């Protein structure tokens, strides 16, 4: 009945498969969406060939931000970091399978921003990472 709250999104929000923390990890980064207070931390393990072997997220936020983080983690396991760096806004929208207005788009893109800032080793998850 409601596109934004498709069953898959509510399912990933309520029962995420990739929620947690990794210790030790190769890459870890966290940031907030200052507008709504959503918080996401992402921990990765990467093998000698630069391929993501494990990926988890932790944090709190709305169904859109948490479901997109879970779907994103699922999608990057087994991928080389070079490919992760190329992920874009459209990739997230394809994962979610919905169109979003500008406000909720920020919720959806938070996990990708945090992921890319971590992979690039940046201090801050800027909007320019998810153009």
């Amino acid at each position, binding site marked *: 009945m*409601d596109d*934004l*709250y498709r069953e898959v999104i*509510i399912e990933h*929000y*309520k029962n995420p498969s990739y929620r947690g923390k990794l210790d030790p990890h190769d890459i870890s980064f966290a940031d907030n969406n200052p*507008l*709504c*207070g*959503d*918080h996401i931390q992402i921990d990765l393990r990467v093998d000698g060939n630069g391929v993501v072997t494990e990926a988890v997220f932790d944090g*709190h*936020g*709305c*169904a*859109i931000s*948490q479901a997109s983080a879970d779907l994103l983690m699922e999608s990057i396991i087994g991928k080389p970091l070079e490919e992760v760096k190329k992920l874009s806004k459209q990739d997230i929208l394809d994962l979610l399978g919905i169109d979003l207005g500008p406000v*909720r788009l920020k*919720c959806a893109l938070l996990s990708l921003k945090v992921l890319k800032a971590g992979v690039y080793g940046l201090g801050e998850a800027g909007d320019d990472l998810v153009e």
Partner: protein
Amino acid sequence: MYEGAREKIAKFIHAAASREIIYTRNTTESINLVAYSWARANLKAGDLVILTEMEHHSNLVPWHMLQAERGIELDFIPVTDDGLLDLETYKSLLDRRPKLVSFTHMSNVLGTINPAAEIIRLAHEAGAVTLVDGAQSVPHLKVDVQALDADFYAFSAHKMCGPTGIGVLYGKASLLEAMPPFLGGGDMIKEVKLRSFRANALPHKFEAGTPAIAEAVGFGAAVDYLSAIGMEGIAAYEHEIIEYALDRLEEIPGVKLFGPSADKKGGVAAFTLDGVHPHDVAQILDRDGIAVRAGHHCAQPLHEKFGIPATSRASFYLYSTKEEVDMLVNGIYKVKEMFG
């Protein structure tokens, strides 16, 4: 009309004279005016400013900035679990002889109506100046700045059926006259030489540049509108609505309400719903035409105090109805079903 609006506003809050009404952009700017003009002329390193834990960011950040610049000290009246100010702790804070006590008359999250007259009386006994954030109280309650004995009182037009972009700082004339000007420019001067100026009289001394004329006139119209209905009647009507809303919301399993009981608060109901993020609650309600705000409502420290990142907040005014409360309640049940 521009000056006529000033007179209407003065009368509306029972100011002694219209020159005590300074036009600003909004409550935020009014508070900043006090922080830049009065506080920078009167506060030095180590001086204490008392705020509360339920303040809007606009009554926190200007003081953080002054703290960084001047080394003033800040302390806070705590908020109790039921959303009231802890006045006993306040009294002990006053032993430290604060220079300023700045607090909200009505919390924009909890709805708590603070005992402003008592807070001000105690502050004055301790020798402190008082600034009241009246952004929520002036639109919803009958406010009499002289009966309260407030030194400064700040509010905005857009929360009282008026336009955005205009607000007021009320200040006692004796204080305003002793303060240095805020922004420099046209209108705020009596005379300008190449190397000096003489400041204008009140209220123009604090109103540099071309004013928001249309907005001021709109502000006057809003005051006319509310006055014609009567603030006592508005407050009584809102009380009826919030009493009903709290009763209905309390019935919903998983809903947690924040703030005191209906007799101690104005018409806002901030709540969380177990297992659903406040933004999702707001978004789903929005699709049924029910507008609530989700987030920290510019009161992040207050939300941290209650250990939550955000709330959904339904707010009521003179045009809200019990039928709308019922729609809200039905909407929340629908959210529960979707996330069930």
